[in-house]
């Protein structure tokens, strides 16, 4: 009985948790509700994932209203992966958030923080689960608005301007997406993704479809922070509360990338997007320039969060480049990197968060010999940093290996070479920080606070859970690769 209603529960649980937090208002209780809701969400998404693996696509008519009238949830292996990834990362980070919220968010507003978090989670899960194009926009707005709010909770006043900048850029992106969906509706008369996809081949010649395609491309590029439309990202990551940064980095851009995949591969179809519209001509240069330049820029950042933010833009470049290959192997590599990078980058931001929690900020100058004071945090940073570089036995290696071999299979040697070049930059920007944290002798004018010690257990444990998962993903790469390969096949095959 309940197994049939899982898709609805996936959304309803976090959505109800949000007003509950507002009603109760006690900080600790709100946190408990958030964690509990998140655990339930994680269990639900796991159950859905298993169900999709064994029984194939789930189609769920919300409220019993069948597709053209009502909203349909459509879950194939790609959606299942996204649901699992988002709920897992959110679950880990929300546990971690407790200490950081107590320290940096104004006491009376904790309940709002958790409420916004739950809404944001609802939005992200909703985008990943829905099979209705307009519903995507609705959930996108829910997640974005709550995310602006979460960013503005940052203790620094600059968080406000960062949030405002994100709001402007995000709203432009969202309106572009809305306009795109509107034109699609005008051209095909449908909002259900499966219906749109089936009508696109007849409507291809219409100018409205062309316009819709262009608006969606730009809108999604802004939302997923593809170079050169990544301007909002660095400030938002740097000034948001640390738990929010970790959550944002692991999920928000990844979900936008999923939407991009869904629209270009399933709805418009591979042939139209990459054959007719030459999408790779637009996206590939942006992606390549992104991962080369942004890795280079990351080297020169003195603030760790800013460094990681630019590195994120670079990683998004890898993912887009993998999509542009438009082949089974390329798409698999892209999806694997969505998973792996989501996990690795969240772990990295969590370790930086631990540093900020104790040191107060994350300038690389004040991290001298930090290993002596915070060994577990620094170890976590090093291990996930190695994953970012793509050292063998880490998750990053799996995705880079598959990306490079996919580009070689396609005959695009240059992509492989440039990916490696940007990995070399990654060695520099990670290595620089590691060297400071391990070997630089503390100086006399050291701005480290006195009595510096290891971060609290409630922050370390979730971080290490995430690390353990990333190690598992790195060692048994075939497991994630086969899941991603199923998803890629489903996307390339279009809707049945």
């Amino acid at each position, binding site marked *: 009985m309940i197994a049939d209603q899982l898709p609805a529960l996936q959304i309803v649980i976090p959505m109800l948790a949000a007003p509950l937090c507002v009603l109760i208002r006690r900080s600790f209780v709100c946190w408990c509700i958030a964690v509990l809701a998140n655990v339930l969400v994680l269990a639900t998404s796991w159950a859905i994932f298993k169900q999709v693996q064994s029984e194939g696509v789930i189609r769920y008519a919300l409220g019993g209203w069948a597709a053209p009238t009502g909203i349909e949830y459509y879950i194939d292996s790609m959606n299942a992966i996204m649901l699992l990834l988002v709920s897992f990362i959110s679950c880990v980070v929300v546990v971690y958030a407790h200490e950081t919220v107590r320290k940096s968010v104004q006491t009376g507003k904790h309940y709002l923080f958790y409420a916004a978090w739950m809404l944001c989670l609802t939005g992200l899960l909703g985008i990943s689960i829905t099979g209705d194009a307009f519903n995507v926009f609705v959930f996108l707005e829910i997640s974005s608005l709550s995310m602006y709010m979460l960013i503005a909770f940052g203790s620094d006043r600059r968080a406000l301007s960062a949030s405002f900048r994100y709001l402007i850029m995000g709203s432009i992106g969202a309106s572009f997406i809305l306009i795109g969906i509107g034109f699609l509706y005008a051209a095909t008369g449908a909002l259900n993704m499966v219906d749109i996809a089936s009508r696109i081949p007849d409507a291809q010649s219409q100018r409205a479809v062309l316009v819709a395609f262009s608006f969606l491309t730009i809108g999604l590029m802004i939302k997923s922070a593809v170079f050169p439309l990544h301007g909002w990202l660095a400030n938002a990551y740097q000034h948001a509360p640390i738990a929010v940064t970790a959550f944002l980095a692991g999920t928000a851009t990844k979900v936008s990338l999923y939407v991009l995949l869904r629209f270009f591969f399933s709805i418009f179809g591979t042939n139209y997007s990459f054959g007719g519209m030459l999408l790779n001509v637009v996206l590939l240069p942006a992606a390549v320039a992104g991962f080369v330049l942004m890795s280079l820029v990351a080297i020169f950042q003195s603030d760790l969060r800013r460094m990681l933010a630019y590195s994120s833009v670079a990683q998004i470049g890898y993912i887009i480049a993998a999509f542009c290959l438009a082949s089974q192997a390329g798409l698999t590599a892209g999806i694997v990197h969505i998973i792996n990078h989501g996990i690795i980058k969240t772990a990295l931001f969590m370790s930086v968060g631990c540093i900020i929690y104790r040191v107060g900020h994350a300038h690389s100058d004040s991290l001298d010999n930090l290993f002596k004071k915070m060994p577990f945090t620094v170890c976590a940073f090093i291990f996930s940093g190695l994953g970012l570089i793509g050292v063998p*036995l880490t998750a990053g290696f799996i995705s880079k*290996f598959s990306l490079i*071999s996919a580009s*070689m299979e396609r005959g695009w040697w240059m992509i492989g070479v440039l990916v490696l070049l940007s*990995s070399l930059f990654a*060695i520099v920007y990670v*290595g620089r920080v590691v060297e400071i944290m391990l*070997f630089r002798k503390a100086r006399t004018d050291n701005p480290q606070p006195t009595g510096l010690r290891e971060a609290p257990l409630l922050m370390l444990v979730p971080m290490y859970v995430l690390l353990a998962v990333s190690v598992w993903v790195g060692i*048994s790469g075939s497991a994630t*690769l086969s899941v991603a390969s199923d998803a890629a096949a489903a996307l390339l095959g279009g809707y049945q």
Partner: protein
Amino acid sequence: MNPLWALVPPLLVIPFIIFFGERRRNLREASIIIAGIVLLGINDRIYSAVKAGELVESGELSLLANFSLRLSAEPMGVLFGLLASFLWVVTTVYSIGYMRGHDEQNQTRFYCCFALAIACVMGAAYADNLLTLFVAYEAITLSTFPLVTHAGNDASRKAGRLYLLLLMCGSIGLFLPAVIWIATAAGTLDFRVGGILSDSGMSQLSVGVLLGLCVFGVGKAAVMPMHRWLPAAMVAPTPVSALLHAVAVVKTGVFTLLKMVTYTFGIDMVSTSGVANVVLPVVAFTVIASSIIAFTKDNLKARLAYSTISQLSYIVMAALLATTMSVTGGALHIVMHAFGKITLFFCAGAIMVSLHKTQISDLDGMGRRMPVTMVCFFIGALGIIGLPPASGVWSKLLIAGGSLEAGNAIWLAVLMLSTILNIAYLLPIPLRAFFKPAAPGQSVDVCEAPFASLWAIVVTATVCVLLFVFPQPLIELLGLIQWR
């Protein structure tokens, strides 16, 4: 016998090292020596199993769709594993004397990373496919990085940066593409008898480029211009230079190349198609040029470092000549050079600890003060040069024979020229120490290194001589390699 057992002792000892820590350092070092002896025993079991023709292999761990991590033993790997584990024990004994005599900081971290590096070397020695070897190769780079920067001062941090940058740039920028290229062309990364590329339909040019990517990408083999990290890394404590930068790290590089030539390319493909002729001149240049640079260095460790670069290129050359004789010679040279060079490094460290001298020009007359050390130095130098009664002569003969077998006498000439240069830069050191009078005003008391260190030096020097008299077991073991 599962070769995975070889990873157990060095990994298992790490918790013990941390647990005993600085306070109970005798127990800490005893545990390492016990682990080393157990490891040697395990390697010996693997050795007898391989000699008896048994299949020695582990299960597999699927890392990427068609590619998995897997260990198995074959003659070259067994030889390398035995070598590294034996020298680990000796070096640990030596370190006890050296690190305490030198009052080094962070000894616990030092021993941990050391054990970790040995575990990685075991993984490389028994790698069953190129992916496993690549993983172990990277792991060695990372686990030895803290050893290079051990001192934590500016010079060592700079050296560490160069170390990491050159090795990682080489491996990720050149070697990894080569691995992926092989994977796409051959569809597998397994080490197979006769190589996997013969029926992949690659053009000669592609094979040549691939070979170049491997030779320069494997930065640990220190072929010019990828050699800069090696002399820089000599800022590390002497036991590190001795075991890691004369044996484990650099030998992993040349071992990788030997294995790839034998089991990935196949010696026929490398020798007949002439593709190696593009790379060989660079290797020959490295042999000569680094010998000449060694000649100009007055710092003892720096001179030894450049000598290492030149000797490594012998092995690379042996691999690229790709005849059965030369590859056997190359594999043998891994062992012979290891014992010679580790003796020399141990002596250099001993001189630094007891006399606080690092420059060769200060060593006049020091033979009287450290007679045992200097005699051992002399034996080690003979081993490197390849003169009886020391071990290097056999491997050099085989490589020289291999170059004739390959039908090109020019490489033989390069070897001989470099031998002359070896004599010129190594022999004067003990000669000065024994026959030149000491500078006036210096003490003339006998002042040998701490007992533990001295013991290690004598052991390695003795093995140098023993391997000259009894090279047969090694050559028999290498005779088990299946070439085609």
